């Protein structure tokens, strides 16, 4: 055991407290009997029960999940194409400008992105009649716009790590470029596709600002409903909802970590076996 100074220990404690005390408080108060959020009235599951009877909240959650799934899929499709161009097209005139433009939505203030998208929809509707009002479709498009930038970065970095000669080898063995992409490139970058999709999904799920610009009257997402209900006063129901979300996220992370750890172990064992065999020869 190394000797750790009290300073380091307190720095560690303070850092973690800063990150997790608010979330812990939220979880604790989700089991609060009292209607007042800040006053402890005893332990109960009451608010969880009420949560599952709240049609408005449940409906909003459903819409949010639907939009998140659709926009994540679209963003992954578009992001893969953009990432592919960035990683494989080589040098071309305006490459820097192009890559800058892809990542710009990440640093653009969301209010501006949202406003611009709203303007586009309004103009488009006047000119072509589509989209007919704002709703799930427009929110999905708006989310795809900013999520795509993140997916592109994830895919591009994975592609540039990938050994180009693997694709060349496939071509050398007689596969045409399109086949090479589907048989070789895509399976190899699949993990990046999954993490890009999940990233886009979470970004869409908790977006409030851009959504507010693109949403219509019948398409309130979960963050919008939560935000508007909090303005009228926080109910412990929201705490219960948040606790469920935190619980699900934790579960997902633990599971992903476990699977990755097991794969790594298997890989190490296989590698050792191969090396032992080679030495035995």
């Amino acid at each position, binding site marked *: 055991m190394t000797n750790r100074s009290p300073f380091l220990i307190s720095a560690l404690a303070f850092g973690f407290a800063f990150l997790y005390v608010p979330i812990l408080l939220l979880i604790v108060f989700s089991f609060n009997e009292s209607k007042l959020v800040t006053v402890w009235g005893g332990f109960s599951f009451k608010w969880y029960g009420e949560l599952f009877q709240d049609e408005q909240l449940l409906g909003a959650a459903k819409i949010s999940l639907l939009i998140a799934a659709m926009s994540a899929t679209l963003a992954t499709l578009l992001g893969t194409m953009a990432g592919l161009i960035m990683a494989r097209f080589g040098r071309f005139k305006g490459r820097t400008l192009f890559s800058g433009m892809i990542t710009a939505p990440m640093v653009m203030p969301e209010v501006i992105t949202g406003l611009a998208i709203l303007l586009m929809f309004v103009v488009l509707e006047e000119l072509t009649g589509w989209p007919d009002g704002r709703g799930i479709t427009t929110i999905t498009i708006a989310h795809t716009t900013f999520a795509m930038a993140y997916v592109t970065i994830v895919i591009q970095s994975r592609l540039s790590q990938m*050994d180009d*000669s*693997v694709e*060349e*080898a*496939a*071509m*050398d*063995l*007689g*596969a*045409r470029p399109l*086949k090479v992409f589907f048989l*070789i490139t895509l*399976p*190899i970058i699949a993990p990046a596709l999954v993490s890009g999709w999940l990233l886009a999904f979470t970004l869409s799920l908790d977006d409030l600002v851009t959504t507010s610009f693109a949403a219509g009257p019948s398409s309130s997402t979960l963050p919008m409903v939560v935000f508007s209900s909090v303005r009228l006063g926080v109910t412990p129901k929201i705490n219960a909802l948040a606790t469920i979300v935190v619980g699900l996220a934790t579960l997902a992370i633990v599971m992903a970590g476990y699977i990755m750890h097991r794969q790594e172990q298997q*890989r190490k064992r*296989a*590698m050792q*076996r*191969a*090396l032992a*065999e*080679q030495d035995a020869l």
Partner: protein
Amino acid sequence: MSQQARSLQDQVARTEKGEASDLLKPLIQIEGVTKSFGDFVAVNNVSLTIYQGELFSLLGGSGCGKTTLLRMLAGFETPTSGRILIDGQDMTRVPPYERPVNMMFQSYALFPHMTVEQNVAFGLKQDGLPRDQVRQRVAEMLDLVELGHLGRRKPHELSGGQRQRVALARALAKRPKVLLLDEPLGALDKKLRERTQLELVNIQENLGITFVVVTHDQEEAMTMSTRVAIMNQGRILQVDTPHAMYEYPNTRFVAEFFGSVNIFEGPLLEDEPGHVVIGCPDLSVPIYVGHGISSREGATVYAAVRPEKIALSKEPPADATYNTATGVVEDIVYLGGESTYLVRLDSGRLVRVDLQNQTRSSEPELTWHDRVHVSWEHSNVVVVTS
């Protein structure tokens, strides 16, 4: 080298001179190929003919253009100018997936998400071969590289040597007319490399497939090839058998790149059809060479003498009019089978001499600070003009 390879070398030599009745068919014809990337000329006006059944090496340092030339044969790069013919057909602009050649990559480039069997089967499936034939050929190939028992493993479950064999099996599975190998042994450790060299040559001779190997390792090129081309700065300097390359280099660069050598620089004093004499300021006497060269008297030429062709003794040689000098043993490097002696000549010039260690005596006949005479036969000198 097998006898088979030796007779192929002779046949190639006869074909090149055009004197044989059994002329070999050129398999690869590279005609005036140039490849530039922007201002940089990677391959500069290269012409080369490679014959059926050869194990041909492209040898050179990094950036000499050897890999670019190989990639043009595979179809990954298109020549800026010139033509490439394979088996008589113009392949200059044919994409890689339509060429009758396959390549083994330096990084092996195995498909990480496929098993060994699937890797080897990939090319066959692209050709639309029936399933049972694919299975049969895959088994055949894995037996060839002695990996039959590892077919279900993924590449990351294999050692470096096993991966190299999978890459070889995969590249051979389609029975290409030519197999291109980019530094095939570069990633293996020394012991494994030596064993694999011989195996590679055996496989090549048994299958009769023409191999074109890119390497930076002159020893590898020497042990494996029927012929070698030495490249420097995008140009081919010499194409020859390893033996001719070593004994009759045509330039100073080739002499120095292909093995070690002592180069003596000096003006040409006498230029006769049967011999030449070179004045060398590093030696006290001139150098006499037993062959004529095409140069003019007074021109600066280079006399190249291999370290193992120099005699070292405490006694002066019988005839001291040419090809000798005196010096002091400055350093001795013991290499097991032989020892390298570095002799500082009286002129200050360092000469390298390799001597066989024929006895186990720990006290060598010559030791540090001994005054010695270096000398060599006039037939053991090669004169190059550049």
